[in-house]
Structures are given as C-alpha cells and as structure tokens.
C-alpha cells in the first residue's frame, strides 16, 4: 500500500466513523437539530464515498470509479455549504426562540397586562395578567375580543381618537381609561400604547395596561397626607425651618416669617447663619448637631437668634435629622420656640420667690418687733407714768422737776423709736391723713442715716422755714408708712447705684406751677402747689432706654440675688396712690435725680394742745383697772386717784372678771390691757359686756396683732389706746368715755 493509499484509508475510516457516530444519534435531542443532522449525514456519506473512491484509485484496485470520484468530489464542498448554512439558520432560529421565550416569560411575569392589537383594535396577544385583570380568558381573545369592549362607553371616542393619532403621527400614547371587566365591574387603568411598525408600515398596536386603582388610592392618601402636613406645618406656632445638608434653607413655615420677620423669598437658599445672634454659634451647632456624621438623637437646646429688625430673642430649639427611605440624611428640620415670655416668667418667678423670702423675713422681723414693742411699751408706760406722778408732787422750777422732764423726753424718744420700728416692719397700718412732708422726711432721714454706709455722704435739705416752725409748711395727704417706704426705696436704689462712695442728696421745697409747665412734667396740674422732693445720687447713671424701663415690675440691672426689680415700681405705685408725679433725670456717669411732686392740701392736722395749756379733767367714778403688769396698775391707780377717781386694780384677768361678775354695777368704767395671761383684754371686755352691755371699756395695748381699733369697736369697746399713754392722755381718754 502506497502512503497515499494509507492516507486515503485513514480518510475513509474516520469518515465512516463520523457517519456511524451521527447515525447512532439521529434521534437524540441535541444540536444540530434534525434538518441539519440529515445534511450532516449526506455530507459524511459523500465524504465516505469520495474517500473510498480515492482509496480504490490510489490502491490501484480499479480505475473505473475515477469519473464517479470527480462528480462526488465536486459536490463535496456544496454539501459543506448546505450543512454550514443550515446550522447558521438553526442558530438564528434558536436565538429567535430564546428571544420569544424570554419575552413571554418577561411579559407573563409583569403585574400589568401586555397586549397587542391589530389595526381594527382586535386583541391578538395578551400576557397571563390579561385574564387576571380583565376577566376575559384567552379563549375570548381567540374568539375575537376588541379593545372597544374593554373601554367604558363614555371613553370609546377618546380611544378611537388616540388610536387614530398613533396611526397618523406614529407616536406613543399614554392615557388613562376606565376599563370594564367581563363581569361588568370597572377599574381605572393607565394604558401606554405604541405602534407596531413592520417595513415602515403600521400593522397594529402594542402596549401595557396597568390597573391604577391602588395608585389612585395612594395618590389620594398622599394628597391627604400632604394636606394634613401642610395644615400642621402652617399652623405650628413655633418657627420651623427645613434645610439641606449644607444647612441652606429649603422651606420655612408662616410662624418663622411671623417670628423672624423674613419672607421665604428672602431666605431661600441661604444658610441659617444670618439668624444666629452669635454667628460663631452657627459653626459650633453645625459640628455638634447639624452634621450627617452625627447619628445620635439630639436633645432640645436654647439658642439666641436675631430677628430681621435686629432684635435678639431666646428660643428653645430642636434639630431633627430628615432621612430618605435608605436612611441617608437629606436635611435637617429646625424647630424654634420663642421662650422670651417663659424666660420673663422664670425671672418673675425668681423675683417673686425672692420677694416672698423678703416678705417672710420682714414678717419675722415684724413679729419680733411687735413682741419687743409690747414689752417695751409697758416698760415705757411705767417710766412715763411714774415720772409724771413724781412731777406732780414736785414744785415747778425744782431741779428734780427738770430731771424728770429729761426722763420724760428720753421716754418719748424711745416711744417714737418704737413707733418707727413698727412702721418700718409694716406692722402698723397707715391711713391717709394730713402730714408735714418735712416731718416725715426728718423721720426717714434718721433711719436712712443709720443704714447707709459711712462712706456715703447724706445731705438732707429741709427748708429753713420748716425748721423754724411747722406752721410755715404746707401739708400733704399721705400715708406716712408709704412715704417712709418710698424714701427708703429711693435711697436704697441710690446707694446701690453709687457703690461704696458718693453723695446722696435729698431736697425738699415747695413749688407752684403756673400755666407754663415744662413739657417733660406730664401730670402736673397748672396752678397747683406741690411739695417737690428730689433724691439725687452721684452713681453711674443710666442710658435713656434704661430710664424708660426702670419702673417696670421686676426690671432690674442688679444681680439676681441683689435686687428684685420691684423697688421702683413700688415707688411709682405709692406716688400714684398719692396723686403725685415722678420724673427722672439721668445721664451715664452723671448720676440720677428723682423728682417727686406731691400735691399739697389746705387741710390742717389736728394738733393736740400741749400739756401746759390744759388742766387735767377730774372725776369721781369707780374704775376697774386691769393689767398683768402690777407696776403699771399701781401707776394707773395713783394717777386716777389723784384725779379723784375710785380705782380698783387687778393684775389677773380671770380674777377681774370674777370681781365684775360679783357686782357689775359696782364699776363705772373698765380699763384693761389686751395682752394678758388667761383671758386677753378683748375677751374680757366681751364677757363683761355680756354681763352688762352698757359698761364703758377702754382697751390699751403695747402692741397686738390680734386686735385693732376697728375690731375693738365691733366688740363694743368704747376706746382703743396704744401704750404708753401719758397722764394727760389717760385723763382725757377717761373723761371722754364718761362725757
């Protein structure tokens, strides 16, 4: 065998093997498919025959097959062409099948109806969702279902117009229709349609129908939710600002405009730096709260903001992160509540608490003062009574007489001191009556001198004519207690303004305004005469804007623990209560002067005559004198007996009552102390009056918070007197009761 014959034999064997392999798998469901596989068989068969012819030729077996060989050989490449072309087609068909399958699966997996129509509107294709959504089966589609049957009668024209438009303009169409199901129920649907164009010609329509019932419901819910949000957002009384992550303003609510004074257009896109009172706070808060890296929830905080008009106000602020559905921070919401009023209320509360504490202190001082006053008045009553008794026994002009006068003067000063103490501690209720303001001022100056630091100089200037005689002075109708308080408050204020060193000047003079009243003296009546009181200090003075506020209750420039802010408002209240006026002159660094005008009165005070000018009245009635101070009963007995009366004394109130019960008609008058063990004077009087309603009773007290003149009258007591009483006062009082 020649080498060529061998090669041909190999050619033949492998061709045959290939043919056998293919024939054995003719019905297998593998590539290539049957059509191509038959072509492959033909190709292999021709190859096998050709190789056989070659082998026969080159083995020199016979030459008869040469011509056949030439024919077969010439056809061999043709079979290759057929086979390869067939496989290329098969692959294209496979692609198409795969593509169709993919489209079908995709279409069937959609929650919407995918459909195709012919030019007449007949449905030629629908995915699996079609029957589910419309209720029409595929059989209905096969039997002929037109899209007009699906659309509500009212919208058929609209559908027709749209289909015409798609055909004429070759454009897509998106419309909403009311679809009628097979069972007659309807639902809203969105239909997107586009023309099917083949070879430049429209052959039908293809589109998607989506049931939008849920979407419409959601849209309505969203609209409702949006409306609710808008209502809430717009009705919130706190300023709300929505900013992006760069803190640029995206939205504000009406309260923001109302509080800050900015319209939205003025602030849109701006950072919030402009409304911070301290611009640095913008950066601080940015790092602390308004940063996308800050994850923890931030508590509310207080911050000062600046309004458009420049006014700074405190606000309680809450910064809230705004996140999208993925949890990413897309901005911040700032809610600012103006707490100016709350702050004011807090300050007011602190002031009221301070005032209450002060009040409690004063009450305690008052109670203490009252207790001391009672005992001290009893002591003074004994001293004064005995001194006056002694004075009666000694001839006038005697040296001892002068000494006794000294005792009496000192005692009267002590009496005055007690009265001032009671006035200061507000235990003694004042009534408006005619007073010489110069006298009230003198009394106050004594108290003020003892309270101000020695380093502060006090100049009290009372008109010389008043010093000479009170008759030269005009009077005012005033509550002496309130006048004292007014002076004290003004002086305390002046002292606080001066600090350690300065001069406090208090001047008093009379002034009559003609018709030309200075413009700044509002409230002054022309033609009236006023007592003009000025209180000046050399302190730090005030700015004009402060001057306007100093009479506001609880306004103070002092530290919280140094002033309540009510002193000057009390002053103003007192002045108004007295129909007066107050004016302030103040310059920073130049000190302050308060000008106070009190209208004068022509009513004169009833001045009692001096003891020297009157003869003590006498009598012969029987008097029961009751006082737990035995010494005082002794003084009273001595005095009254000197005046001709018969006096029975008793230091125990229950014994006195028993004495009275035994023989009520024995006594013509009862003089009793108030503060006594066992039975107080007022109760003793009540019981005696029950026994004998016409018995005149005089109630005396050194000081009592339980009973006053009005209460005594209500009980039926004829006269109420405050100790210590001197002889003249006792004599006049007794005689007044009898007469």
């Amino acid at each position, binding site marked *: 065998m020649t080498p*060529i014959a061998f090669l041909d034999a190999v*050619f033949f064997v*492998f061709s045959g093997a290939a043919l056998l*392999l293919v024939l054995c798998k003719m019905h297998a469901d*593998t590539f290539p498919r049957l059509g191509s596989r038959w072509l492959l068989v033909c190709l292999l068969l021709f190859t096998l025959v050709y190789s056989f012819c070659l082998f026969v030729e080159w083995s020199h077996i016979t030459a008869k097959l040469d011509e056949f060989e*030439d024919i077969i050989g010439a056809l061999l490449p043709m079979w290759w062409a057929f086979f390869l072309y067939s*496989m290329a087609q098969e*692959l294209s068909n496979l692609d198409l099948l795969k593509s169709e399958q993919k489209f079908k699966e995709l279409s069937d997996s959609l929650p919407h109806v995918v459909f195709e129509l012919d030019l007449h509107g007949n449905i030629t294709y629908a995915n699996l969702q079609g029957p589910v959504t419309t209720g029409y089966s595929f059989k209905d589609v096969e039997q002929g279902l037109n899209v007009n049957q699906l659309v509500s009668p009212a919208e058929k024209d609209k559908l027709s117009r749209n289909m015409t438009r798609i055909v004429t303009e070759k454009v897509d169409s998106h419309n909403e229709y009311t679809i009628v199901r097979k069972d007659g129920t309807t639902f809203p649907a969105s239909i997107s349609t586009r023309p099917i164009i083949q070879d430049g010609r429209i052959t039908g329509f293809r589109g998607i129908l989506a049931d939008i019932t849920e979407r419409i419901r959601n849209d309505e819910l969203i609209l409702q939710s949006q409306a609710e949000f808008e209502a809430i957002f717009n009705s919130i009384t706190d300023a709300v600002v929505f900013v992006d992550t760069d803190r640029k303003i995206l939205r504000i609510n009406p309260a923001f405009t109302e509080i800050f004074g900015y319209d939205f257009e003025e602030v849109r896109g701006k950072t919030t730096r402009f409304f911070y009172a301290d611009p640095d706070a913008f950066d601080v808060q940015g790092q602390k709260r308004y940063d996308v890296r800050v994850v923890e929830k931030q508590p509310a905080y207080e911050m000062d903001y600046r309004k458009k008009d420049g006014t700074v106000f405190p606000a309680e602020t809450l910064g809230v992160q705004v996140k999208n559905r993925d949890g990413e921070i897309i901005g911040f919401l700032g809610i600012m509540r103006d707490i100016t009023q709350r702050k004011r209320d807090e300050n007011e509360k602190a002031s009221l608490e301070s005032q209450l504490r002060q009040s409690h202190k004063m009450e305690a001082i008052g109670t203490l003062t009252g207790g001391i006053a009672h005992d001290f008045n009893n002591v003074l009553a004994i001293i004064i009574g005995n001194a006056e008794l002694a004075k009666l026994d000694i001839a006038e002009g005697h040296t001892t007489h002068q000494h006794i006068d000294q005792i009496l003067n000192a005692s009267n000063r002590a009496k005055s001191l007690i009265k001032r103490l009671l006035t200061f501690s507000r235990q003694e209720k004042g009534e408006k009556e005619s007073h010489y303001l110069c006298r009230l001022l003198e009394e106050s100056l004594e108290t003020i001198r003892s309270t101000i630091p020695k380093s502060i100089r006090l100049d009290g200037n009372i008109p010389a004519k008043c010093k000479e005689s009170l008759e030269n002075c005009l009077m005012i109708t005033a509550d002496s207690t309130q006048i004292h308080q007014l002076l004290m408050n003004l002086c305390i204020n002046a002292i606080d303004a001066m600090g350690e060193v300065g001069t406090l000047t208090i001047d008093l003079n009379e002034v009559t305004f003609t018709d030309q009243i200075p413009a700044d003296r509002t409230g002054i009546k022309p033609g009236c005469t006023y007592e003009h009181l000025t209180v000046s200090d050399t302190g730090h003075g005030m700015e004009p804007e402060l001057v306007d506020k100093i009479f506001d209750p609880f306004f103070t420039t002092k530290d919280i623990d140094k002033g309540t802010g009510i002193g000057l408002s009390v002053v103003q209240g007192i002045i108004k209560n007295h129909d007066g006026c107050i004016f302030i002159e103040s310059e920073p660094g130049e000190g302050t002067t308060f000008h106070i005008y009190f209208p004068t009165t022509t009513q004169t005070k009833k001045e009692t005559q001096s003891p020297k000018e009157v003869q003590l009245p006498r009598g012969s009635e029987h008097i029961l004198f009751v006082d737990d101070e035995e010494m005082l009963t002794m003084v009273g007995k001595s005095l009254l007996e000197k005046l001709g009366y018969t006096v029975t004394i008793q230091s125990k109130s229950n014994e006195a009552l028993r004495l009275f019960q035994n023989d009520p008609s024995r006594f013509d008058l009862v003089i009793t102390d108030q503060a006594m063990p066992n039975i107080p004077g007022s109760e003793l009087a009540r019981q005696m009056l029950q026994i004998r309603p016409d018995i005149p009773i005089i109630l005396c007290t050194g000081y009592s918070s339980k009973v006053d003149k009005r209460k005594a009258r209500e009980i039926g007591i004829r006269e109420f007197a405050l100790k210590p009483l001197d002889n003249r006062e006792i004599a006049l009082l007794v005689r007044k009761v009898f007469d």
Partner: protein
Amino acid sequence: MLHANELVMLIIGIGTLLFILNNHHQLKRVPSSNILLGSFYLLVMGWFSTVMEGFLLESLLNYLEHFFYAASSILLAFWCWQTLYSKRNSSS
C-alpha cells in the same frame, strides 16, 4: 495537469469559505466550532493542493492533498463525537 472537477471543487470550496467568513460570528456559536471549521479549512487546503499540483511540486502537493483529507476526516469525526456525545455540548 489541471482537472476541471478539481477546479470546480476549489471554487465551490472557496465560496463556502467566504460564506463561513461572512457568517463567522454566527458559526462561532456552533459547539466546538474550531474543530468543525478546522476540518473544513483542511479540506479546502487539500483542494487547493490538488489544483496546485498541476503547476508545481506535483508529488509533494499530491501527498499533502491526501494528508489534508485524512486530517480533515479525523477532525470531523472528533467533532461529531464531541458534539453528539459530550455531555457539555449535549446540554447546550
């Protein structure tokens, strides 16, 4: 000596070759396409050799012709086995 049938074989073969080249991208997706197309290319080379042997190197080119035929049949048989019997290709 040039035979007419050999020339026809070559011409049709080249035409088929052009078809392959034109649809190469599509035919590349045929399983084990390199083997199948390789088999065809060897056949074309055989046809080319048999035409050329009429002009030069007759003996050598004749040997080569038959060698290419044998090699082509081997690859074709291998492709049939690979395509129809290999699990990997069956699944595709």
